[in-house]
């Protein structure tokens, strides 16, 4: 039951993009086409889950064990940056087709606030629906659910934007401004889920 609440809450109620505003840069940047947003979603899911596991363990067994929690920001960003690099090298060797598909998006993920954001939320103990201590399984489920929420919002939004490209928009609103207004309407639609968990 606890896990179902985590999943529904992270995907719909507290959607990472539309309610928490994490990862808005790729949201606006790569959402021109449905295809690229699927690629981005894949890369983010991959890195987010691995990064959450590693940062959870580091926080628990290194930072807390030695009482150096103030080093968290620096440690986490270095972990994420090196993970992204490592994933890139490994993918290149193990699965060239997947690397081709995700390749250009991987370096962008280092500065995607969603990945660092989820890692920080987990270590701050801010998973909605969990009382008491957070286990590794909680954080993995939370990371996967957030990645799905990110993908859902990104792909729906890309679909909407593909249609808007074909319509006649006032000159000053072309491109990014109209995208923001659409995102606002989408966020309003997601607000309808408020209160179900």
């Amino acid at each position, binding site marked *: 039951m606890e896990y179902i609440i985590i999943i529904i809450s992270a995907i719909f109620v507290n959607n990472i993009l539309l309610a928490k505003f*994490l990862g*808005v*840069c790729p949201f606006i940047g790569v959402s021109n086409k449905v295809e690229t947003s699927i690629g981005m979603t894949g890369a983010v899911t991959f890195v987010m889950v691995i990064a959450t596991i590693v940062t959870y363990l580091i926080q628990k067994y290194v930072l807390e064990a030695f009482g150096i929690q103030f080093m*968290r920001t620096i440690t986490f*960003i270095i972990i994420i940056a090196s993970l992204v690099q490592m994933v890139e090298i490994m993918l290149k060797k193990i699965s060239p087709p997947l690397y081709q598909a995700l390749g250009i998006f991987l370096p962008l993920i280092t500065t995607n606030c969603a990945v660092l954001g989820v890692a920080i939320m987990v270590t701050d103990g801010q998973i909605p629906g969990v009382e008491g201590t957070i286990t590794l399984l909680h954080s993995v489920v939370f990371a996967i659910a957030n990645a799905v929420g990110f993908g859902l919002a990104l792909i729906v939004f890309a679909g909407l934007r593909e249609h808007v490209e074909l319509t006649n928009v006032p000159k000053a609103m072309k491109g990014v*401004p109209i995208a923001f207004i659409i995102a606002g309407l989408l*966020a309003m639609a997601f*607000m309808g889920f408020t209160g179900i968990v």
Partner: protein
Amino acid sequence: MSQWKNFSKGIFKENAVFVLFLGLCPTLGVTTSALNGLGMGLATTFVLLGSNMVVALIKNFIPDKVRIPSFIVIIASFVTIVELTMQAYLPDLFKQLGLFIPLIVVNCLVLGRAEAFASKNTFLSSFVDGLGMGIGFSLALTVLGGVREILGSGQIFGLDLYEGGMIAFVLSPGAFIVLGYLIVLNNKLINKKS
């Protein structure tokens, strides 16, 4: 380029939020009121100034290949300074801004300026650039926060203006919609796009 031009481009011509679309996550996330926007803007300005100055000073010692990780570590150190200082002296603001303070590390604006400007220019130019960009960013956040506060809760900087606002403007849809229309205004009035 004169230093004055270098300073003012960050405020109008290359405004981080309205023109370059950098640093959007904190822009949308914390601007529920003008004061929060200003606080976030000043915190980012401090990090931006610090990282620009340090990067400009040591740019000749950093090997090209490990450039980006080095910049990130420099930025993360300044963010930690802000985080700890704010927690000690401004605990209320720190609680309001919450997650977004550590997330200054991944603000594309800070890394973008380090990479695109400070790693190629002198100490003085980088300082002026950081100041201009930071003030432009703070201004944008304060305006966005102010508009949302006026429409959403009928207040400005905590002073009551009228009774009852439209709560949607304080919640997430308002952030996207108000920012969208502010960019439109900017395109129409300040940086006329042909």
